[in-house]
């Protein structure tokens, strides 16, 4: 489902004397449907960078990133948009939304863009929010005022409302209490069971051990010269 070959990436800082900073070289990995892989490595090793490249957020210099048959390195923007809409889900650590939109609508949005009727999309969103223990009185408020843990759960709800065949999870259990952590872990297990290919960054080692079939150490992808 997700297949990466010979991927490399460097940043060129034109406004700082044109400094070139290589951050990745010769990355290869493959995650099949129903499989969950964890990216590991020290801070700064490139876990988030790799994740962002798979999401299409960072450009690659060479190689290929295939998700469901689309190569993100060469794909046109609209193909990446279609991929994000239908195939590839992403739970980031940050919540970026229009300030006054209600939490229910924020969560329902991925379904609305897919053309799901609004009542159905909202019903699904409410079910997920309830499961993630977001108090009902918050549903009509904008999540921008929520606590970190609540925002995290809103992000998770957004990422799980559509059964994406491929999922990217950036620290999904960070800043969650035990009960909510359990809910999120079972959501991930359900996604795995329905055949989603999952790549995640988990600092929560117990979660990693419970969910992941494989660990991928991104230190191996760090350019030797720069390291």
């Amino acid at each position, binding site marked *: 489902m997700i297949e990466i070959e010979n991927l490399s990436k460097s*940043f*060129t*800082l*034109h*406004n700082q004397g044109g400094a070139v900073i290589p951050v990745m070289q010769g990355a290869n990995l493959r995650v099949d449907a129903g499989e969950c892989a964890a990216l590991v490595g020290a801070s700064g090793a490139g876990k988030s960078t790799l994740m*962002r490249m798979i999401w*299409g*957020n*960072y*450009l690659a210099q060479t190689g290929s990133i295939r998700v469901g048959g689309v190569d993100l390195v060469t794909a046109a*923007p*609209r193909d*990446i*948009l*279609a991929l994000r*809409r*239908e195939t590839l889900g992403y739970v980031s650590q940050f919540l*970026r*939304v*229009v*300030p*006054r*939109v209600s939490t229910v609508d924020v969560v329902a949005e991925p379904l*609305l*863009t*897919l*053309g799901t009727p609004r009542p159905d999309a909202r019903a699904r969103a409410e079910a997920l929010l309830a499961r993630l223990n977001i108090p009902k009185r918050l549903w009509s408020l904008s999540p921008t005022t929520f606590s970190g843990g609540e925002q995290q759960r809103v992000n998770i709800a957004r990422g799980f409302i559509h059964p994406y065949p491929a999922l990217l999870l950036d620290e999904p259990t960070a800043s969650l209490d035990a009960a909510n952590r359990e809910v999120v872990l079972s959501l991930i297990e359900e996604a795995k069971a329905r055949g989603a290919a999952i790549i995640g960054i988990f600092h929560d080692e117990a979660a990693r051990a419970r969910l992941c079939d494989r660990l991928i150490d991104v230190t191996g992808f760090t350019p030797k010269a720069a390291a």
Partner: protein
Amino acid sequence: MSRIEKITPAPLLSVRNLSKRYGSRIGCTDVSFDLWPGEVLGIVGESGSGKSTLLSCLAGHLAPDGGEVVFATVNGPQDTLRMSEPDRRRLARTDWAFVHQNPRDGLRMGVTAGGNVGERLMAVGTRNYGSIRDAATDWLGRVEIDANRIDDRPSAFSGGMQQRLQIARNLVTGPRLVFMDEPTGGLDVSVQARLLDLLRGLVREMGLSAIIVTHDLAVVRLLADRLMVMKSGHVVEQGLTDQVLDDPQHPYTQLLVSSVLQV
């Protein structure tokens, strides 16, 4: 099934080598891009970068010196620059819409809110007062203006309401392509957020395509699927909005992104 795949797999707007000079100065030059149904394209750049010139050329308000602007009309793709004027004007009041930065440029200030919204309907031949009134009421509701303001003139409205009224006036005939020139400029931030949310909802529900010119990177991040960065009349970079903003490649884009004040 996605919204995009339900529609024909052809670009809604194909722009090729569009150029406009003001004497020896470059307005914009060699601009080419495709806009697909349902897509929102942001055009950013500093003042004088040619983004407004480009928008005016695209919308037919300004005659470019060369290039093509091919629009997928109901009768197939047509170069709007070579269309007859009546055809282009008809397009401008049916399939196209233009939202001005200053609502005073896009509204009739001496005409009531209902008349402003109804004008495009009357222009395409609606001759039933009741149905015009119903459509106007419906649209005022959709842009969150109280229905009992329908007989007030826009001069009695706040800036944000005027801008929303302008949007209602433009969208009432169900256009497929909307040009927006700094739609949130001149509004305070809380009103901006409301307008952005409204625009996102309308774009999604109506399957609209939009081209938005702005210098506000926060606006494009929330509204635009794709981004085009202009400098001195040239497009220096284009791509997915979040990719251009988070991993800018061109020196100018890097400067632009790093210059934004963080809140």
